[in-house]
Every structure is written in structure tokens, then in C-alpha cells.
């Protein structure tokens, strides 16, 4: 019997203009591979070659698997196709198969793109190590497809059952319980496939020497995926349809939250205690300018990734740039508050300035902490981070002071001074 979902997917794909995104990603990765050459070879030369290769294959495999986990979450839980099919009964096995084909066709190029970044290995003549690396990455991709489908469908069960309430309520923060089940699922899938990738990476030396057991272990993530697959198919029968109701529940809960009064609890408010001006600044920052603290964490994430791949220089530069950028937020706090209004309201400038100083200092930590923690565990030199923190202290004070004296126009003075401070500290560090 033909699969109606697959038939429609193919028909739509044949008519829809193609963005060739998969191909573009692959070509882009190949084109930028010369840039990855120094880092890659440094990575492999800095330690015993196979230790480096093991680390590289673990990171590339993990990166691809993580991306696939997120893609399959979207396809299973948040696919737009759900809205189309919701009014109708579904045939779970056929639909899950069609969804899986969709995930495969959307992500097939990702392992190739990851390997495109590692092309300098081939240029340097490491053909067999490159082939072993390719097998680990490809196997991570394949394994994650099977495993992530099982875990995402399992997360629907976790969202609906009462048995996991105590865990989900502990993890959920301000999210509805069901959302907690969904948002932790990609990480949970990555955690389990991570074991497989770690094992297959650890035998890469043996695989290069063509030891049969080592070569077989390269496919461990595939085995995990294949074992998980029947569970996914079984879970699809009970969880694929209810997933729509869970998603609708989450969306409705958020809609109610957004329509309601402002949430009183904001980022970092637990630090405010009874300092009212500080609490006010935290609330203002989170409600009106939350892109800044979120942006700081995004930059922090990229710095973390750079530190993870042993690119310490980029990690430090990203942390410094991100934190200095975020420190400018004090000037934005003052936007639209004329001086006469402060006078009329009896605003105490000193308290306001101190509150803004702390808020910008704390927001900046988002850009610093992730890579700092990695440096800490890697026993790398912490001097750059000490200097960054000093810079952030100075720039937070500068920005807060300027926001009181010059309001948002303080930004114009803050930017060149902050850059100058960065340049001076960078110069002192280098010499």
C-alpha cells in the first residue's frame, strides 16, 4: 500500500521552489575549510595525533548529532504539517515514516558539511584518518535520527504522564511542565548518543589500523539508532496524535501568560533582595531590553564553542566584545527619561547609577561565564578573564555614570572609550 503522506510530501517538494539549502551549506563549508586549516592542524599537532583526531571526531559527530536532534524535534513536534493534519485521523506508522524521510532529506548534507570543514586533513594526506572521521560523523548523524525520534515521541509521553511531574516541575522554570519535557528532549537524546560517539571516537586509532573490532565500533551510534527505531514506531501509535494537544496546551498557556499582567519575576531578581532601585533596573532591563542579556548568552555560547575547539583566542575576543557591548545597556536605561522628570519624581541619581552599574555588570557575565568555565576545567590561563572582568567593571561604571549625566547620548561617548580601554588592555596583555 502506498504511503499517502510520503506521496504528498514528494508532490509538494516537486512543486515548491527549492532553496538548495543543503547544497549551499555543504559548498559553504568546503569553501571556508581553508580557514579551518590552521586550527585543525594545530588541534591535531598539539597532542598525540590520534588523541587530536579522537577529539575532533567527537566534536564533529556531536555537533552534527545535536543539530539533527533539534531538526527532528521540529519535524515531529512543531511541524507545520501538524496544523494541516490535525482535523483528520492519521495513520501513525505511515506518517512517522514520512516525517523521518523528511528529516533525512533535510539533514543528509550536514555530515558532509561537517566533513567539508575537515577537508584540510585530506589535503595533508591523512586519507585513512579522514575516512575514519567521516564514518564517525556519518554514524552519529544516522544514529541520532533513530534515537531522537524515539526520545521526542517519548517526551510527549513524559509531558502527559503524572509520574514525571516532580522532575519536570524542578526543571521547568517559568515554562509549562509540558514544555520542559520538550525542551530537554534534544539534550537528552544528545546525551545518550554522546556515549556512542565517545566510544566510536575512542577507537579511531584502532580503526585507522583496520582492527576489525575498532572498525565495527565506529558504527556504534548507528546501532543505537537502529535499536531505538522500533521503539519510535511503537511510540508513534500512542504519542504522535496527542503531541498536537500538548503543543496546543503549551501555546495556549503562553498566550494566557502574554495577555496577562507582566510577570513579576525577572532574570536575576533573586540577587536584588530589598534593594528597590536594583530590582527596578532588573525589571526594566528584562522587560524592555531583554535582547541584551539574551544576546550576551548567545555570544557566550559562541565563545564556549570556540573554547571547546581549543580556539582560546577567539573565545577570549568574543567574551570581551560581548561583555563590553552589553555594558552599554546603562545608557539605554535612561532613554526617554528627561532630567526634569527625575527631578520631579525625586529620583536619587546615585542609587540609580549604582543599580545600573550592577545590572550591566551582571548582564555582561552571560558573555563571559560559559567560556570561562571551560577555561577553568581545561586548566588554561585565566589571566585574560581577569582582565576582561576588570574591563567590565570599569565599563559598567563608565556606562552607568554616563547614563546619569548624558542619558542615552552617553552611548556616543561610551563606545570610543570602551574600545580604547579594550585596545589598551589587549596591548598590555600581548606585551
Amino acid at each position, binding site marked *: 500500500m502506498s504511503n499517502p503522506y510520503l506521496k504528498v510530501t514528494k508532490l*509538494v517538494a516537486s512543486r515548491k521552489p527549492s532553496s538548495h539549502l543543503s547544497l549551499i551549506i555543504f559548498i559553504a563549508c568546503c569553501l571556508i575549510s581553508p580557514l579551518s586549516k590552521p586550527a585543525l592542524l594545530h588541534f591535531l599537532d598539539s597532542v598525540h595525533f590520534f588523541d587530536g583526531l579522537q577529539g575532533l571526531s567527537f566534536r564533529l559527530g556531536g555537533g552534527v548529532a545535536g543539530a539533527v536532534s533539534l531538526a527532528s524535534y521540529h519535524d515531529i513536534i512543531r511541524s507545520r504539517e501538524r496544523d494541516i493534519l490535525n482535523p483528520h485521523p492519521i495513520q501513525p506508522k505511515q506518517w512517522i515514516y514520512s516525517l523521518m524521510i523528511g528529516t533525512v532529506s533535510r539533514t543528509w548534507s550536514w555530515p558532509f558539511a561537517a566533513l567539508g570543514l575537515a577537508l584540510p586533513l585530506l589535503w595533508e594526506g591523512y586519507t585513512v584518518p579522514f575516512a575514519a572521521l567521516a564514518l564517525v560523523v556519518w554514524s552519529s548523524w544516522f544514529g541520532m535520527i533513530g534515537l531522537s525520534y524515539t526520545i521526542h515521541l517519548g517526551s510527549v509521553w513524559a509531558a502527559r504522564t503524572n509520574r514525571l511531574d516532580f522532575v519536570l516541575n524542578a526543571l521547568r522554570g517559568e515554562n509549562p511542565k509540558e514544555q520542559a519535557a520538550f525542551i530537554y528532549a534534544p539534550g537528552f537524546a544528545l546525551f545518550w548518543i554522546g556515549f556512542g560517539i565517545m566510544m566510536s571516537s575512542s577507537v579511531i586509532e584502532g580503526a585507522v589500523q583496520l582492527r576489525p573490532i575498532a572498525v565495527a565500533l565506529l558504527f556504534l551510534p548507528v546501532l543505537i539508532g537502529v535499536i531505538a527505531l522500533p521503539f519510535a514506531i511503537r511510540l508513534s501509535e500512542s504519542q504522535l*496524535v*496527542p503531541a498536537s494537544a500538548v503543543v*496546543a496546551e503549551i501555546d495556549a498557556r503562553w498566550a*494566557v*501568560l502574554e495577555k496577562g499582567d507582566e510577570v513579576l519575576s525577572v532574570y536575576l531578581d533573586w540577587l536584588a533582595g530589598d534593594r528597590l532601585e536594583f530590582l527596578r533596573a532588573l525589571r526594566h532591563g528584562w522587560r524592555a531590553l531583554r535582547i541584551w542579556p539574551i544576546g550576551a548568552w548567545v555570544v557566550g555560547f559562541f565563545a564556549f564553542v570556540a573554547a571547546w575547539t581549543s580556539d582560546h583566542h577567539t573565545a577570549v575576543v568574543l567574551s570581551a566584545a560581548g561583555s563590553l557591548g552589553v555594558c552599554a545597556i546603562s545608557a539605554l536605561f535612561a532613554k526617554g527619561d528627561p532630567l526634569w522628570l527625575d527631578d520631579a519624581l525625586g529620583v536619587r541619581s546615585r542609587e540609580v547609577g549604582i543599580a545600573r552599574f550592577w545590572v550591566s555588570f551582571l548582564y555582561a557575565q552571560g558573555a563571559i561565564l560559559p567560556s570561562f568555565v571551560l577555561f577553568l576545567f581545561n586548566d588554561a590561563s585565566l589571566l585574560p578573564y581577569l582582565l576582561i572582568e576588570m574591563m567590565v567593571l570599569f565599563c559598567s561604571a563608565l556606562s552607568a555614570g554616563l547614563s546619569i549625566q548624558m542619558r542615552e547620548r552617553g552611548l556616543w561617548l561610551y563606545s570610543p572609550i570602551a574600545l580604547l580601554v579594550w585596545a589598551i588592555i589587549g596591548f598590555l596583555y600581548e606585551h
Partner: protein
Amino acid sequence: MSIEVKDLGKRFGSVEAVRTLSFRIEAGEFVGLVGPNGAGKSTTIKMLTGQIFPTAGYVCIGGVDMAKEPNEGRKKIGYVPEFPVLYEYLTAREMISFVKEIRGIGDVEWALDLTGLGDDADRLIREYSQGMRRKTAIACALVAKPSVLILDEALNGLDPPSVERVLKALSELQELGTAIVLSTHVLDTLEKIASRVIMLKDGVVLADCPPSGFPELRSLF
């Protein structure tokens, strides 16, 4: 096939969208679900069709609990959501054929005729107006001639001749024994066709009466 709603309630966090609803709709009945905006109509419809699960009570369609077996329940229902979403790169004929295939039964040409899509049936849905999209969604709901038909503001955006045509089709299905629920905030539409009207306000049933009670209902709006 009957629809049984017992002590139905739905709460989103601190907001109680539906409090305690109980009613029963028999085969061949045409029931209008009316009420002002925010009365809980759409939430009720979504619980009737298994799109969301109740926090209290239950909905049974032909003896199937929609929260426990939503997919089994969906097999018995034809449903037109308030904002239908369709495959943009299919034609209406292909879309309706697809629904027929997944339901395993249906008459595509009959559904197309009924909704008057006619010559436009072979154009891509992405080229359709809102009204034509709605007609396609209605045809999808009707194609398998389900025992229960639930329409959420399904006549919005249709031109008067199309409304007439759809209402006529609904009448025919009603005569065949289909239980029909039409949610709307336009009472005039129901006067022509409904055998009963349930009025909701603030998540509770304010009135449940035959068409003869319509004048009274108007005063409650």
C-alpha cells in the same frame, strides 16, 4: 452517533476558559454553538475534536473518549477549524483526495460539487482566496461523509451563495443522520437550519433551547 459532553472544564494556568459544560447531541441533530467572543466556543470545539484535552470532565464521540483515544475519535469526525491550514502546493482536488485516502473512504467529486469549487479545483491552493480555502477545508471535512461534523466559524469569509450551498449540504447530511455542531457568533445563520442552540458565556451554558427560543437568546447577547 451521539456526542456526549459531561462536566467539561478547561483551565489554562489561572484562566478558566470553560467551567462546567454538560450536554448531549444525538444523531441527526444540528446544534448551533453560539456566544460572544471569549465565551469558550473555540475551546469547547477543540475539546470536542481532541485538539486539546480537558482538565475536567470528558467528551465522548460515539462512545470514544476524545482525550484517551483522540485518533479513534477523529475517525468519526469531520472537522473544519476556525483557521484551516492546507498544503499550499496541492490543488483542492489533490488535497481532498489525500484526505479521502487517509480516511480510507470518500467521494471527492461529491465534496467538490457540494462546496462549489468547480473549475478552481485544479488550481494550487496557494492561489486561492480565503473563501476558497475555507471551501476546500469544508470539502475535506465532508468527503468521507462522517457521522459527526464539527465546524468552528466555518462560514466566515464565504460569499452568500456559498453559505447557502454549504448550509444545503449540511441539511442533506443531517437528514442522513449526521450530528452537526456549528460554532458561530452570527445567530441569523442558525435560524434557518439549526434544530437546537447552545449558548455559552464565560465558559458555561447560558441557554440550551430549540429555535423557538431564539428571540430570548438575542436579548442575552
